[in-house]
């Protein structure tokens, strides 16, 4: 029992995250994304969330299990021995984890931080098998790795560090506190 692919795309079919756990050539990957989008976007919002897989990704043995949140479709392509209801729960956990780590995640977050989304996903699913389902565990691991990365950050993040340092400095207050030296009296100059 395994997950064959995890796809996230928006209402226009633009992919926002693609992870294949079985190898496909790149153009085939794009075809699969397009075909999956066509299959899934036709569905009404009040029908059930399971579909037979399209012809490219295995046909009758595989199912597409998806959830539609606002502008994004989360699609898991799984083989027939996975429990459909269980996978729906898994999608829920994934989305909630993203939500907690990005603070009210939206599509833009996925666009700009696709590597982070991958990292989170890698804590959830590995090699097509479910790795961890506890949200706080996933989150804490992810946070720790983020911290590790930040601490290592060298020259390239100097501008960022400089900016945050300036922010910490609270300049307006400092200006207020500055003590100006006394100006010499003009009158004494003309003496």
């Amino acid at each position, binding site marked *: 029992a395994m997950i064959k692919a995890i796809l996230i795309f928006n209402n226009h079919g633009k992919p926002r995250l693609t992870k294949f756990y079985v190898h496909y050539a790149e153009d085939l990957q794009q075809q699969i994304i397009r075909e999956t989008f066509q299959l899934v976007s036709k569905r009404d919002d*009040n029908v059930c969330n399971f579909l037979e897989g399209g012809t490219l990704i295995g046909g009758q043995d595989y199912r597409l299990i998806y959830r539609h949140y606002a502008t994004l479709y989360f699609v898991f392509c799984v083989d027939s021995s996975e429990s459909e*209801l269980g996978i*729906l729960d898994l999608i829920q956990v994934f989305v909630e984890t993203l939500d907690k780590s990005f603070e009210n995640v939206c599509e833009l977050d996925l666009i700009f931080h696709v*590597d982070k989304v991958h*990292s989170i996903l890698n804590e959830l699913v590995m090699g097509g098998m479910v*790795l961890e389902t506890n949200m706080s565990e996933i989150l804490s691991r992810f946070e720790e790795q983020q911290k590790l990365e930040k601490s290592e950050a060298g020259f390239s993040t100097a501008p960022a560090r400089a900016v945050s340092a300036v922010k910490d400095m609270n300049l307006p207050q400092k200006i207020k506190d500055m003590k100006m030296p006394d100006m010499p009296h003009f009158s004494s100059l003309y003496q």
Partner: protein
Amino acid sequence: KGIIANTPKRLRDLIREIRAAKTAAEERAVKRHHPPSRCRNVAKLLYIHMLGYPAHFGQMECLKLVASPKFSDKRIGYLGAMLLLDERAEVHLLVTNSVKNDMNHSTQYIASLALSTLGSICSPEMSRDLAGEVQALIKSNNAYLRKKAALCALRIIQKIPDIMEMYIPCARSLLNEKNHGVLLTAVCLISQMCQLSPETLNHFRRLVPNLVRILKNLIMSGFSQDHDVNGVSDPFLQVKILQLLRILGHQDSAASEQMNDILAQVATNTETSKNVGHSILYEIVLTIMGIESESGLRVLAVNILGRFLLNTDKNIRYVALSTLQRVVQADYNAVQRHRTTIVDCLRDTDASIKRRAMELCFSLINGQNIRGMAKEMLSFLTDCGSEFKADCCSNLAIAAERYAPNKRWHVDTLLKLLAAAGNHARDDVVVAAVQLISEQSAYQAYAVHQLFYYASQDFSQQPMVLLACWCIGEYGGGLFSDCCADGLETYSAKSPEEVLGLLEQALLSSQSRQSTKHVAVTAVMKLSTRLPHQEQQLLDSIRHLAAYHCTSSQLELQQRSVEFSAIFRHHENIRAALLEPMPVMESRAESGRNLPAGSGAAAVASGDSAEVGDEEAAAAAAAAVAATFESLINFDDSSTGGVPNATTGLPNAATNSSSMLSTNNSNSVAGPLIDVFGDLGVSEPAPVSDASALPALPPIASAGIAGLQLSLVGSRQQSNNVDLIIRAVNLGDTNMTNFLLQAAVPKSLQLSMMPASGDCLPPAGGSVTQKAVVTNPNGVSALCGLKGLVRVEGVG
């Protein structure tokens, strides 16, 4: 967010520029313009890759990143490796060394990166190299790493099943874990091992009590707060354990017995107010059905499914229906109890649910509920979308044939069926109807009247019209007098003009399909002998209608038209004899009706079902010598199992009826199937042919009275063409004339027949030869069926 605006903006610029770039070279130029931070570059590269641009030139970059000592570099490098490298490229081996070193790194996150990568892209070579490292990590004292190592081991044994042995002891000890994550992966690992090797399965059966205990702890004692989802403690783990129990208990009563209690307990204790509870219940049902459970437990499972059917959530209803379909054979009575709910699901708005409900309904039809169910299915057929009509129609026809309480009901139902299915009805249903009507002489008049009524109401429903034309032709005599069917309804007589009017419409209308026109022409001819009075005016109009298509561009139609006109012109004296009613068609040897394999598979899309039996019946029946005109079709279907073109049924039938026309009594010889491409197999066709002759296949004896023998000599011209030379020998002592050879091949082949050397076979050894060429473009092993028809003088 403002602070990091820098990098994303660059990404956007990059994307915009790349989109404007036309070639890969320009793209690379664009990439060079963005200043190096290898790390960010690769991140951008991955984004580009996701959008579909080729990115394999980034593979080396990823490898360099992986080799760097910094975590941030490694992170992106490994991510890139997972997305860009594939195990079939040589390149991936270069990462093996880094992975090996990193797996033992002191920083746990670096080790975990290495493990993740190995788990994603491991190839057999990598797996062999690193199997030992992974095993060591399974015993690590870091739970996080243990968890990842366990899943890694799973992927490794998927690639190289032989090294499963080394993981068995550590997997077993993992079951003593408290950490849910590790437990989850351990259960996955053990499940996979059991699925790969039966000995390992036996070994792990001893662990059933342990698993039962773990499950009990999960549901009883206070749950671990972290893993609680909506009040249910770690549903994912529960589900995985249940799956493993299913594997272990399958076909093993001892193990199954140990599970009975816990299954019942979990089933009754699980909260069903949220979806989470449902996924556990669903898994329990699957497990109960998958092991040797006692019947009380099975009934409990079916009832759970019944409750699911009433749930408002569509997903749950869908899942329930598909599971019920899988268990309906085993627990037929239990499922029957929920029949009303299932029938209600037919009216659901969701197409997938409707389809599942439809299939399930057909599985539930039996002799007791046939009337009620047929009514339901007919009303479903009238309202449902067109994607369902064909399957529903065919399936209902089968069910009607099997369980019809009486013949009148059967005829009625088939007619209503055709009326409701309209143009979606498959030809085999029409064929079945024809056969039924020909058998039931008592209802022929009734049937013809009904058909006339239907056909005049709605001409666009071609299968119905076709059936009507054929019946009018054959049994038209019944139309000209009143009909009182079973003392219930009365149909008034129709005048010959009305009847001819209908047939004329069939012949001339643009709505008519070709097959309809063929049948209509023949019907018009037959009607000429069925008229109550042989008025010259009527005969003239018939003659006119028959000749109408003499100049048609459709060969079949033109041929018929011309031949029929010829009968009027030259053979007026034997017209009556030629157009005598056909003999009753013999039905199939088996009682089950055969659908062509293709539509049978479509009608019962989800695997096991009662209809599978029909395909076997078809295969058995095809071997029997049958004098019906469907036998040619069945050569195709049952022998190859390929998806046949169902519409070939009728034209063939029509051909036969014209051959019936010329041979009033036919002794047909249906030969057994000959594998003419036997030694070709599925190999590539050789460019140079060996002109070796296939061995002359042994002659096929006939089963008819007259002793017609067909024998086959084949010789190969090129590797995918076979010339067949068929010789027919008359072993009897009466003259045989009007020899007609028919051959059928599956759709993947092409057949062309040369003219026969003659069509008369003098007695005692007279012979006729005919050549046929079979082309096999795909080089598949194929079958060919032969049938010879002759007219034997002196026999009735």
